[in-house]
């Protein structure tokens, strides 16, 4: 009995998780006229009108490109700056290490809305309103604490003995970090990158506040602004939502191979 239940539960969870996505898929292929009648489980005939409108008149390529640039830049910068920072916090003994870690965490505790006005003023002073950099910079205020906290844990899991072996072999700490620690931390780095990318891809409030026109809007903002004064183009919204999940799904698929751990097996006796 319990065996059957245990096997059915994951199936139920997967169905529950995928159901909205399926409804979106069906909806995005159904003409507006029939959209508010009961949507059939299998749509017939398939209509590509919403996708044509999305990439034609709506110009959905633009927010898609903006989101991609901003999310990729945020992820790369967060890893590039966060990794050495996290390594120092994980491995070096210095005064105030615990305080630094606590402060980093405190930054990510601030409600997002409370930092919007000051950030807006900063960005206006810097002339970065309505630019890609004007989104990447504020995103880093949230992405960096996330990255640092994750990577501190990741780096601590790399056996210290292996690093010490590298140093006995003549590697400086920096070389040991690059040649030994980073490759061994690759699965953790991939996970962190994935989360940072997801966070940046989904972010809405900053993107809405710090961009002015449709040529700088990111995907979530663009979709939210689809609604006209009198109607919401649900078909296009559903189509856009599906398109927006595609890059994320791709990133997960690519990262998945690295997420499978076990890379450190055999270095030290397990």
């Amino acid at each position, binding site marked *: 009995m319990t065996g059957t239940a245990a096997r059915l539960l994951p199936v139920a969870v997967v169905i529950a998780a995928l159901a909205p996505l399926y409804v979106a898929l069906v909806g995005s292929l159904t003409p507006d006229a029939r959209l508010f009648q009961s949507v059939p489980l299998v749509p017939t005939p398939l209509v590509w009108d919403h996708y044509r409108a999305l990439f034609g008149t709506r110009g959905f390529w633009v927010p898609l490109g903006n989101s991609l640039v901003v999310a990729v830049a945020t992820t790369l910068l967060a890893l590039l700056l966060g990794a050495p920072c996290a390594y120092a916090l994980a491995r070096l003994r210095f005064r105030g290490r615990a305080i630094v870690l606590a402060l980093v965490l405190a930054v990510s505790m601030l409600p997002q809305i409370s930092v919007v006005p000051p950030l807006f003023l900063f960005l206006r002073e810097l002339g970065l309103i309505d630019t890609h950099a004007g989104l990447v910079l504020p995103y880093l205020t949230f992405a960096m604490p996330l990255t640092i906290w994750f990577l501190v844990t990741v780096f601590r899991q790399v056996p210290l003995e292996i690093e010490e072996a590298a*140093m*006995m072999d*003549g590697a400086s700490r920096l070389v040991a970090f690059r040649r030994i620690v980073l490759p061994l931390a690759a699965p953790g780095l991939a996970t962190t990158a994935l989360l940072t990318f997801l966070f940046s891809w989904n972010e809405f409030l900053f993107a809405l506040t710090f961009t002015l026109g449709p040529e700088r809007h990111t995907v979530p903002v663009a979709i939210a602004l689809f609604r006209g004064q009198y109607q919401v183009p649900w078909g296009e919204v559903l189509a856009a939502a599906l398109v927006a999940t595609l890059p994320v799904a791709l990133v997960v698929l690519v990262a998945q191979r690295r997420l499978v751990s076990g890379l450190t097996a*055999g270095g030290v006796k397990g």
Partner: protein
Amino acid sequence: MASIQLEHVEKRFGDDVAVRDLSLDIADGELLVVVGPSGSGKSTVLRLIAGLEAPTAGRIRIGGVDVTDTPPQARDLAMVFQHYALYPHMSVRDNLAFGLRMRNVAAETIARRIEDVARSLGLTPLLDRRPGQLSGGERQRVAFGRAVVREPRAFLLDEPLSNLDPRLRGSTRAELALLHQRLGATMVYVTHDQEEAMTLGTRVAVMRDGAIEQVAPPTEVYRRPANCFVAQFVGNPAMNLLPGASWRMAAPQGLETPRSGLTVGIRPQDIALVGPDEGDTAGRVELIEPLGGTALAHVRVDGLPRQLVRVLLADDADIAVGARVGLRPRRDRLHFFNGSSGCRITATDESDGHGSD
């Protein structure tokens, strides 16, 4: 190859003293074994020499040059770690090459040295595998190979055999002794196993509580332990330490009995069991542990109610549990220690008392 000197080295971790005022001279080409129970600071001594820890006080010299403030990568020492610490993302070949590449050795030289070392350690068929695909013994050999291929000024070995199963440990120990003979290299070997210390070391340093209790060749440590701790730590089964007053026996001539009394040390193999009335003292056999070729008898000696005296027997000895026996220790193998400080007391005529085996 180089000599290593530690001069009044101290290491504190916060309020804990791991190593206290330790001075040690390790000669060029020597295999010094640092032995002690866990927590005695022996690994810290090795890490101080390696440069992985910085001493709180004192100086460290390698080849006569002060390296106290030199980082580990510039000391040109090779270390074999307890858990091997191989680079799991590299092939065996790259593991061996890493240290040489770090020192900008020419590619042909690297290839040649790897080939030589791989052949001598039997690693040639493993060169393209990763550490994860190797057995424990193979990983151990790769760890040795990674150290040997470097041709360092000295080798540091941190309990390198403790993760091997007992049979493999014996053969690897012999290989290591041969390796030391062949290379003539300076080696510092840390272990908690007194048997490894006795068989491998040209000298043995016995440590306790961050200090060295005695440094001497293994036979000297065994025959003339400097104090009660060394006496009990070295040798298996461990030496009996008995209050001198309970032992019906005159101290040898020239031995001054300290005011705090004497502790008498007798190794289990230096006591013979005789008839109840023939020995220096008598007692009852409480337990017999067969050890293969020999057996260990635990005897409750009259007047010593809280202590069992260990006596090593031949396995064909005809003695049963519960029997009354007499004990006759070999007079020339007795050790005398100060009853309170535990320090060895040397009789004036002791210098020739131990030469017979």
